[in-house]
Structures are given as C-alpha cells and as structure tokens.
C-alpha cells in the first residue's frame, strides 16, 4: 500500500479493522484479508546505504524488482493454465480412441473418477484469494463440476436410458448442487459463476420439462434470477460482492434478449439498462453503470428498428436519443456536488 500524501504509511490492519467495525466485511473476511496482506507484503527494505544502491535478489523496492517477480509469477501461472488446457485436450483425444469400446458403466465410472480426482486436487490446492494457488484451486473445482455434469449425463443417457425430456435435469441438477456446496466452502468468484450458470441451466431444464414452448419465456426467468442475484450480492448474502453484482447484471440484461418473440421484452431490457446506469452512478458502482451503457447500445437500436424501421428515420431517432442522453448526463453531473 502506498503512503498517504503526508508521508505516513497507511496500515492494512487499520483499514480492515475499520471495515469490519462498519460491517462492510465479515470478521472472517477481515482475517483472510489480513492473511493475504501479510503474505503479499514485501519484506522490509534493508537499511539505506550512502550510495542508495538498490538491493538485489527477490526483494521488492518499489516497482523495480518486485514488478519483475510479479510478472514472472503471472507468466508461470499462465503457462500452467496453457499446459493444463493442452493436457485436457490431449486427454480427450486419447479417451476418444477407446471411449466407444467402454461399456456405459465404465464410461460413467471413468468420468466419476475424473470428477473425484479434480475435487480432491482442488481441495488440496487451497491458496488465499488472489494468489495463484487460490485461483488454481477454484479452477480445479470448476472442472470438477463439469466432470460431475458429464458423469450424470452419461449415466442418465447410456445407463438409465432417461428420456430427452428429463435428461437436461440430470445433466444440470447434480452438478449445480455440487457447485453450491463448493461455493459455500470457498466463496470465490469462479465458484459463484459455476453456481449461477448451474441454476440458470436447471431453471431452463425445468421449464423444458413443463413444456418445450415455455422455454421461450425462459428469458424472463433469467432476468428475474439476475435481479435476485444483484439483491443478494448487495446484501452480502452472495459473495464475492463484485462477482455477484456482475453476474446478476449480466442475467438481467441478457434475459430479455432471449424473448425475441415478445417485443415488450426489449423495453424490459432497456428499463433494466437504465436502472443499472442510475444505480451505478448513484452508488458509485462503476461496473454496473458500464454494463448498463453497453446494454443501451444493444436495446436502443433494436427498439428503434422494431418500431421505426431501418431507414434514415431510425438513425435520426437514435441520434436524438443519444443527444438527449448526453444532455441528461451533463445536467446530472452539474447538479451533483463534488465529493
């Protein structure tokens, strides 16, 4: 952490204590942050020599040697993921050579073993948030959920001969339950993403089971789940906060797009985008405001083309809307007191 303008070093511990006292973070989160800060902080610099020569080796003396060490760590991590991806792809190709020769039970068992192995590996690699081991552990658990989904999918289709109408539930529901358990164990962004997509998948599978035509209304359910996600994240029921808000906003903005047969859904998406911009600006949550702005670029042209057509009038209408938005932004900015 950099020093304040007065030159006094800011204290991580003081910051975390204040945040905990104000209920911004839980005691558990504060402790984890203190641990992370302690592990990430560079060792104290050696005593200054008259020549002020920078120390050599792995010490961090500002942005010179410490920056190089960070770059090296990130490169190593990136190489690790690339290597893992290559290994996975190669493993899939190898498995394809003998997959057809396996009985359905053997196929199921093989996938189950892979899932369990990934679960164990992810449990063993449990680093703090923001560290390479932390990210690797989260990624391994994402793969474990995917392998679980595949296990149940193969079992349902090849062993139990489950009909198509129920197959989607077998593929999504067990994996989503596992994803939720893993998220409760480690409230990390990747685990939250896995749970989110799992719940979306289960929801769509249930709608499909009710009636295949109801799936066209699934976008409304995705929108509702997105709103719920943002509410729960903001109330700290879902963690991490940022991931929860982003996932929720994504669902709320994308959901209406799936209801392309219902033009009123475009207005739902537009309203959601505007609401996110207002909330983002009002609460200082820049990412929500940014996502809302991007969504405007999607929904406004679609609405204009839907109701005005694709001629010059439509383009002029969009120009006018854009000018109005800029004017509103200037007015709002001028009325807000500087903070």
């Amino acid at each position, binding site marked *: 952490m950099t020093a304040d303008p007065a030159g006094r070093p800011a204290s991580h511990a003081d910051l975390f204590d204040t945040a905990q006292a104000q209920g*911004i973070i839980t005691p558990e989160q504060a402790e984890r942050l203190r641990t992370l800060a302690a592990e990430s902080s560079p060792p104290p610099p050696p005593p200054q020599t008259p020549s002020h020569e920078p120390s050599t080796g792995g010490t961090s003396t500002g942005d010179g040697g410490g920056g190089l060490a960070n770059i090296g760590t990130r490169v190593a991590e990136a190489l690790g993921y690339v290597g893992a991806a290559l290994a996975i792809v190669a493993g899939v190709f190898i498995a394809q050579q003998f997959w057809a020769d396996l009985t359905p039970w053997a196929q199921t068992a093989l996938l189950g073993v892979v899932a369990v192995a990934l679960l164990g590996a992810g449990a063993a690699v449990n680093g703090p948030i923001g560290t390479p081991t932390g990210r690797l552990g989260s990624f391994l658990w994402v793969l474990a959920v995917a392998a679980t989904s595949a296990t149940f999918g193969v079992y349902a289709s090849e062993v139990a001969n489950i009909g198509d109408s129920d197959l989607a539930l077998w593929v999504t529901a067990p994996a989503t339950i596992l994803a939720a358990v893993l998220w409760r164990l480690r409230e990390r962004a990747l685990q939250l993403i896995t749970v989110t997509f799992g719940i979306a998948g289960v929801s769509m599978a249930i*709608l499909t089971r009710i009636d295949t035509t109801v799936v066209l*209304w*699934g976008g409304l359910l995705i929108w*509702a789940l997105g*709103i*719920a996600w943002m509410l*729960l994240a903001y109330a*700290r029921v879902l963690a991490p906060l940022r991931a929860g808000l982003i996932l929720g906003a994504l669902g709320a903005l994308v959901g209406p797009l799936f209801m392309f047969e219902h033009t009123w859904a475009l207005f739902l998406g537009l309203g959601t985008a505007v609401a996110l911009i207002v909330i983002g600006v009002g609460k200082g949550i820049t990412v929500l405001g940014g996502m809302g702005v991007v969504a405007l670029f999607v929904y406004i042209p679609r609405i204009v083309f839907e109701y005005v057509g694709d001629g010059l009038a439509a383009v002029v209408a969009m120009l006018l809307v854009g000018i109005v938005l800029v004017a509103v932004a200037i007015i709002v900015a001028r009325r807000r007191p500087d903070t």
Partner: protein
Amino acid sequence: MSVPEPRPTRAVAAIVASAVVVIAAVVVILTVGLVPLPDLPSLADDPDPAIVGTIAYVHGTWEDSCIAVTPASGGESRDIWCGRQPPDQLAFTPDGLLLVSGWPERPVDVDGPIVTVIDPQTGNEVDEVRPDGRVPGTWVPDRTRRDDETVLQIGSREEGVAELRVGAPGSEPQTIVRLEGPRDYEFVEAQWSPDGAWILAVDSRGRLIVVGADGTPAARLLIDTDGDPWLATRIAWWIPDNTTYTIDPADLAQD
C-alpha cells in the same frame, strides 16, 4: 458516515425481495406463457361403438418402443410386441394380421425392409416377407386418400393451431377440425379409417385423435402415447371384412 443497517435485516430483506421477483416471473410464465393442450373428451372413458375396428400404434422411445393395439371405439389398449427400435411402417392384412417393417434387430436389406407379420391376438411372429425391390416407406397405401378420392390435409396456417382439412375432388379443402394449443401445436399425421367414416390423426404431443369424416362428431382422444409424436405416426386401422388400405403379404414377396 451513517451507520449501515444491521446485516441480518438487509439480508432477510434481500432474500424476500429476490424470492418475490423470481416467484412473480414464474407465475407470469406459467399463466401467460404456458398454453394448455386442447382438452378433448376421452374415448377411453366413454367408448363409442359407432367407431369400429382395431387400431395399431407405436409408443415408447426410439430406443425402447412397443407396438400396441386398441379398439377404435375406445377402451383398453394392449402391448403386443416390444423391442428396441421402432418400426418404419404399420399395415394390416385383409384378415387382420399386422405387417411391421424395419423391426428391431433385423438388418435392413439394401433392396427394401423386411416386413414381419404378427398376430395381434397373440403377439407371435407368423411370417416374414421381403418386399420386391421397394424402398422403406412406399409399400403402404396412401391412407390420406379415400375411395372417392377425397383427400386429407394437415398443416398449420397459424402458429399454435392444428388443422385438419378435407378436400373433395374438384373443390377447395374445408377445415373440419381446428384445435388451439401451444405455439408448436399441430397435427403430424392423419389417415382415413378403412370405411371412410372417420379420421385418425396424431398431434404434436403424440395423442391419437378420432374425428368424424366431416368433423362431426368432434375430435375425441383415443390414446395419449405420452411420447415422441413422430413415433406415434406409425399407425394402422383395420376393420373386419374391409380390405381398404390392407396389404396381402403375397403381393410383397420377391419373385
């Protein structure tokens, strides 16, 4: 800086609000988005003796299907043969034996399918015939055309509306059945009864429906196969002493 709300209260409020939003969406979907199937009187509950004959149909899955027979008037149906692969076509012989082509575990001959003759009373296989150079699907007669050349037409002109149309020679087809359902609802198969007095249709939910030749009596549900509607298109109707749409196995045998 103002003191924030105690977290449990905010969390409870968020959970309640989230539940309300999701439940509201589900209610809208189920009330507005879910269009029910047309509710038809059931011949199983109220058989009509005016509808004569026996109907054979297929139900189950593509991996595990069964051929069943049921009185055309309605009533109990009976599985007569179950295998892994569904047949391509069904037809009756003049004396009421069932002809089944492309039956499970039989190799499909390059010159045409093997047609198995089954006794619907016992479910036993009584003969096997190899059609003379015919490709699958063309050895059954056209059951959409009646003896007087009146034709049956299916096909939706509106989304979610299943229609049956009947066209006498020289005249425009007239709609005799119009059923509203979900957006993909339609008839996928229809054929005349051997006596030309009834129409047997299959809807996109795999339900076998019987209706009078001119739309009267109105459509009634014979069987809900509760399966793939394209399996249910394998249907055949036999009336004793009526050889319309029947096939003599001897006519199929190779020279």
